[in-house]
């Protein structure tokens, strides 16, 4: 794709011999919100810092809008970054903080103040123009940091854990505002986060990182519903993983026998793998149903006993111990307010799922 807006080509970064980013290649399109999702030490922040120019790749190249970024100082890149700590200058007012970047471009005073006021209105901080950073709450600081990065009209905005320092209510609210601002200004966003919920709601595409490598790239739906590795299945959302052996491998379906599950899993789509190989079956907790009586059919059913029930308000989490001893997590919505015959602990239950639900993983 020649029109990729940000192109990362075989980039490796080692710190004292140990690779923090390991041969990563990635294309990000114009106007996209791309999320790098990974745990701590997965290399996502190092990758972001290389785009900003604070770290130089050990090998490989970075292109932004077709331009090779090798040897270009941070102050000359068409990129701005919003730092995790916000990094607002404590000795400057909100206005001065936001104006700082424009002053470096040697713009006229009138234009600077006009653009500062404009961007502060967009992030709804116009009333706080004279405040110092220590006079602002966490959410307000986040908006000022966003305004300061956006006022330069960058081609690409890098966001390092943009919502990490906010409390939960404010987070959800800010998430949607961030999306609205991005749509309005049409800036390409690359977001680094360890929070899968944040990545899911913000991103048009997600790149899941582990040990310095990108293990899967896809839309939030792809990543959640079609994980390609056990790591991705487990890292994004919660999942029940069962080891098993492939006993029947046809083009339109497969059968897997799992001792852990004590059942045969019938999957209504084919996989690319050699038969009689050991695989893992992943089933999401919300895709499993619970019944007191045995449902029809002999496949995709397992028997167990309810161990624990966690009432979460909108949903309840049931931990069911299978006959083979394996614990399974099931999430069910609490549809009815007062259910007299709600499941209780130690009840004997049957778990079942649709043939399209399991994901077969070989890695």
């Amino acid at each position, binding site marked *: 794709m020649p029109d990729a807006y940000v192109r990362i080509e075989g980039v490796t970064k080692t710190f004292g011999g140990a690779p923090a980013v390991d041969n990563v290649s990635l294309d990000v399109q114009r106007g996209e919100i791309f999320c790098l999702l990974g745990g701590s030490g997965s290399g996502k922040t190092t990758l972001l810092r290389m785009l*900003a*120019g*604070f770290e130089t790749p050990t090998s490989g190249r970075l292109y932004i809008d077709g331009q090779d970024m090798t040897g270009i*100082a*941070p*102050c*000359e890149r068409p*990129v*701005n*970054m919003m*730092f*995790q*700590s916000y*990094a607002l*200058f*404590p*000795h400057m007012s909100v206005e001065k903080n936001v104006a*700082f*970047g424009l002053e*470096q*471009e040697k713009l006229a005073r009138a234009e600077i103040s006009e653009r500062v006021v404009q961007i502060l209105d967009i992030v709804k901080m116009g009333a706080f123009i004279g*405040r*110092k950073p*220590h*006079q*602002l*709450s966490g*959410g*307000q600081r986040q908006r000022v940091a966003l305004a*300061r*990065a956006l006022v*330069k009209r960058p081609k690409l905005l890098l966001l390092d854990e943009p919502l990490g320092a906010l409390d939960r209510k404010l987070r959800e609210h800010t998430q949607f505002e961030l999306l609205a601002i991005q749509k309005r200004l049409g800036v390409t966003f690359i977001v680094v986060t360890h929070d899968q919920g944040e990545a899911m709601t913000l991103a048009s595409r997600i790149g899941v990182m582990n040990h310095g490598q990108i293990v899967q790239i896809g839309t939030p739906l792809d990543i959640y519903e079609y994980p390609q590795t056990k790591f991705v299945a487990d890292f994004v959302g919660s999942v029940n993983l069962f080891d098993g052996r492939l006993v029947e491998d046809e083009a339109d379906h497969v059968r897997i026998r799992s001792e852990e599950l004590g059942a045969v899993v019938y999957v209504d789509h084919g996989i690319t793998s050699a038969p009689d190989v050991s695989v893992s079956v992943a089933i999401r907790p919300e895709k499993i149903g619970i019944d007191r009586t045995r449902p029809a059919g002999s496949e995709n059913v397992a028997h167990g006993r309810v161990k624990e029930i966690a009432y979460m308000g909108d949903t309840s989490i049931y931990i069911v111990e299978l006959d083979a001893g394996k614990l399974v997590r099931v999430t069910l919505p609490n549809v009815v307010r007062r259910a007299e015959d709600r499941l209780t602990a130690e009840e004997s239950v049957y778990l079942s799922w649709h043939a399209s639900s399991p994901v077969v993983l070989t890695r």
Partner: protein
Amino acid sequence: MNRGYFSRTGLVIGLAFLYLPILSMVVFSFNNSRLVTVWDVAHSPTLKWYVALLSNQPILRAAWLSIRVAASAATGAVVLGTLVGIVLARFGPFRGRTLLSAMTTAPLVMPEVITGLSLLLLFVALEQLIGWPRGRGMLTIILAHITFTMSYVAVVVQSRLAGFDESLEEAAMDLGARPVTVFFRITLPLIVPAIVSGWLLAFTISWDDVVVSQFVAGPASTTLPMVIFSKVRLGVSPDVNALATLMVLIVALGIVISSLWMHAMSKRRERESQLAIAANQ
């Protein structure tokens, strides 16, 4: 035993231990008698030693020299010490960093006699080799004072910078500022309090130094502490008490004013932060 009683006793003993000597010096500076240890009940208190000081040319000259030396040494120490502090706090791991860090703090614990002696040897050798500094006097005292006060500045600046996130400077660079602009508009304003307190620290250390000055001073350059020291060797005279009292007064005033100002600043900051939080709820 009562805890309040215990802590009060500790307070009294501690304060007495620290301040009785100074208090007795202050009291005796108002004594009319020429004999320091005999209180002249009939004619005391008197200000005559203070008046005598004003016409004592050698002491006034020495005081003026001390002020100039302390101010120049503090300024030189601030420039060098700030550079070292920034390098140690911001330049990451580089070859020789541990050595620099250790060598910067070493003069803090080095015996002054050794510092003075080695500086004297250095100055003499330099004069023989390159003819500079010519002889010993105010210049050599200033140079000597810079060498052992810059460590204090470096430590103060380094610890101040360590309290600030390095991403502040990165953010400035990211917004298009060149390294020089970053230094003058971001780093320097952040460490101004450390530079001011480092300067004051260097000034007071230089102001009351006897040992090192003794080694590197020339015949015509006698600082105030050297005058006091030589006078005391000939027997304590009451005008020294008066002089010392004035020095204590000046230092105490400086400390009181600066701590009041710092207290007011932090109070204001705290109040503003609380208002900001309250306004958001």
